């Protein structure tokens, strides 16, 4: 654990706010919002920074009479104006999911690399070397108990009415204490093929605890995996992440994530088996799936569209539906308020700006503040510019001494300097 403390945990990495338009992540929400204002919502004509793409669109059409067609500096598939984004709000659920998957994959890969470099085999690497892990005891008791409870609940549920238990043989002897499931942070080396339970490790992930009870039913390590060539990924929105999904081992690793998110949607999914007697059900709400679907899921695909249409189709789920999953990010009320503000940014900002302009003019300082005497007159009074008419000769102007010339603009002496 000491090692893990040094680098951010998966939890921390996942909690980082990130930009919908360019997938960059930031330390906190404020920085993300200022990033979006500077990079994606800035008017290229006048440099004004708007709060949302919609606001920028209105600004462009009203102020510059131009039509905004795409968000600047955005990834090609994210440049649409249809999605109203402000900070992390408004990001479609499917995009959040795929982002999280990518983050997890990256995290695990970097973790694996780090371990490869440091030479410390991950505690879960035992399966790769064929040895049972020595570290099961590292997982603390409360976690174990929790998972056992969940597993039991799951079993009870499948016995009660779930068909999934019948469709796939329950892994005999796969109790929650089995090495594969009790292994704390197990990181598959990128080159590893699907290797039985190991991919489901990653105890550092909060998702692991809720997701793992599902797996006994899937009987990991089943021999009848279809060859990878059959993969088709209907549910994934295209990810501009190079290398994503290239290594087969990553698919199983992502699976916990998928399932954990699906559990979040449990209330929406009509096909879920009802298990009224079980309080923990939301955490283990495995959808009813047939064998093929299970296989697909196991291969790393999300549920077929029939099971969780909102997610798999890439539709944007209604905010109320997933509010529970993002409630730590935003409260519903705040969101409504922000949306309302975003919808009518123009008058509000205009009203704010006018007083500030007036304030500015109050604070302005004139470089030349004499409102009565022009700079030329002042210069003309300087001794070195004094005109001596004597040089003119003996003509009539001689009666005028130079002082008269210099004093031609005497008003300035009495002038009160106007203070700006």
């Amino acid at each position: 654990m000491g090692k893990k403390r040094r680098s951010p945990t998966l939890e921390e990495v996942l909690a980082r706010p990130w930009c919908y338009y360019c997938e960059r992540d930031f330390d906190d929400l404020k920085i993300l919002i200022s990033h979006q204002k500077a990079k994606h919502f800035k008017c290229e004509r006048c440099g004004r920074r708007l709060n949302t793409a919609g606001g920028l669109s209105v600004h462009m059409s009203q102020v510059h009479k131009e039509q905004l067609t795409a968000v600047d500096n955005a990834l090609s598939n994210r440049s649409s104006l249809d999605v109203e984004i402000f900070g992390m709000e408004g990001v479609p659920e499917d995009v959040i999911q795929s982002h999280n998957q990518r983050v997890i994959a990256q995290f695990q890969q970097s973790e694996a690399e780090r371990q490869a470099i440091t030479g410390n085999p991950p505690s879960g690497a035992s399966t790769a070397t064929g040895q049972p892990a020595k570290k099961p005891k590292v997982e603390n008791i409360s976690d174990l108990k929790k998972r056992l409870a969940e597993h039991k609940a799951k079993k009870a549920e499948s016995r009660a009415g779930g068909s999934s238990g019948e469709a796939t043989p329950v892994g005999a002897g796969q109790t929650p204490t089995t090495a594969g499931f009790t292994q704390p942070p197990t990181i598959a080396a990128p080159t590893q093929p699907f290797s039985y339970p190991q991919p489901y490790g990653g105890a550092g992930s909060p998702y692991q605890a809720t997701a793992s009870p599902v797996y006994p039913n899937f009987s990991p390590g089943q021999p009848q995996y279809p060859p990878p060539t059959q993969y088709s990924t209907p549910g994934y929105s295209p990810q501009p992440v190079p290398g994503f999904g290239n290594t087969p081992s990553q698919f199983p690793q992502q699976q916990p994530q998928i399932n954990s998110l699906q559990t979040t949607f449990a209330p929406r999914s009509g096909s879920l088996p009802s298990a009224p007697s079980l309080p923990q059900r939301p955490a283990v709400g495995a959808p009813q799936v047939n064998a093929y679907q299970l296989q697909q899921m196991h291969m790393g695909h999300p549920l077929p569209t029939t099971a969780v249409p909102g997610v798999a189709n890439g539709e944007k789920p209604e905010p109320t539906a997933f509010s529970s999953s993002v409630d730590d990010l935003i409260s519903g009320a705040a969101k409504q308020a922000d949306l309302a503000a975003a919808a009518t940014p123009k008058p509000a900002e205009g009203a704010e700006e006018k007083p500030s302009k007036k304030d500015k003019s109050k604070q302005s300082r004139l470089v030349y503040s004499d409102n009565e005497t022009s700079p030329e007159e002042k210069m003309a009074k300087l001794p070195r510019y004094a005109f001596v008419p004597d040089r003119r000769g003996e003509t009539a102007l001689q009666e005028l001494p130079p002082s008269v010339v210099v004093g031609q603009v005497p008003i300035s002496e009495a002038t009160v300097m106007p203070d700006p």
Partner: protein
Amino acid sequence: MTSNQFTITSPPTDAISALKFSHAPDSTRFVVSSWDKNVYVYDLRDENGVAGEGKLLQKFEHRAPVLDVCFGATEDEIFTAGLDWDVKRIDIASSSQTVLSSHDAGVRSVVYSKEHNMVISASWDNTLHVHRLADDRTVTNTASIPLPSKPFSMSLTATKLVVGMASRALHIYDLKSLSLLTGQAEGGTAPAKVEIEPWQRRESSLKFMTRCVACMPDDAGYASSSIEGRVAVEWFDPSAESQARKYAFKCHRQASDDVDVVYPVNSLAFHPVHGTFASGGGDGVVALWDGIAKRRIRQYQRYPSSIAAVGFSSNGKYLAIAISPGYEDGKDDVVDGTVKIYVRELGETEAKGKGAK
């Protein structure tokens, strides 16, 4: 940026008061008046008529600092005005100088109307002198017109004369009636006093002292600037619709630590072809504006000191920019080498308005 910029060799040794290009078609000659008591005549063409880096043709010393200069009917005739109270005609070819008239104080501005063959000068003695010239370039008669305040700037079109004065007063004279009325006055160097009501009396649209006025080349209106970083654009037509079009905008300001530092707008010049205008400020910035579309066309990089004067050549291909240390609050010394004249060779569309969008 397509334009290329160069500095003129042998600039004045003291602050520049005015810079004017010749109105003769395709002439690249310009005159500069300076506080070092000289008027400098430069030409961008060399002996073979090829436009180049420009050189000093001649300089004419005066007895006192020269505050304004303008070209006459040809590029060989200039009129000067200065602190020696005189209004002078100088023939460049023969280097002969003639005093047209003398004011009772320093003469701030001088302009020439080729349509009416008149030289008009404005002096801090609160008068205008209108000199009607004969074809042999001698003064046939001179009239003195009292002004309500000290004049600070003057500009004319083919038909109108705009005089910007202290106390934010502004007079617009009709040149034709000016010519007729002063024609009845007696000639000579002692001007006859003539009370002439201006065609329009206006109060400046700007709250602070008028620094410069410049008329549109299409005779439709004028722009004025103030010491408080602002430019107003107005139209001659007194009808309500035209007057409703007038506007003013802020410019030549710098924000530093919550305080807006506001510089005077020392100079304005209209582009003779495109009708856009340039403004030069105490901040050393020259900006080009489209007064009709109300848009800034471009702003050039800051010059090392205050802009004293700007001017377009008659074909609109050159923009001359004279810089001098500004006479600002608590600053009155001119350091050597800070007075410069830059000439920008403008690209085809560099000063052209973008058009309303």
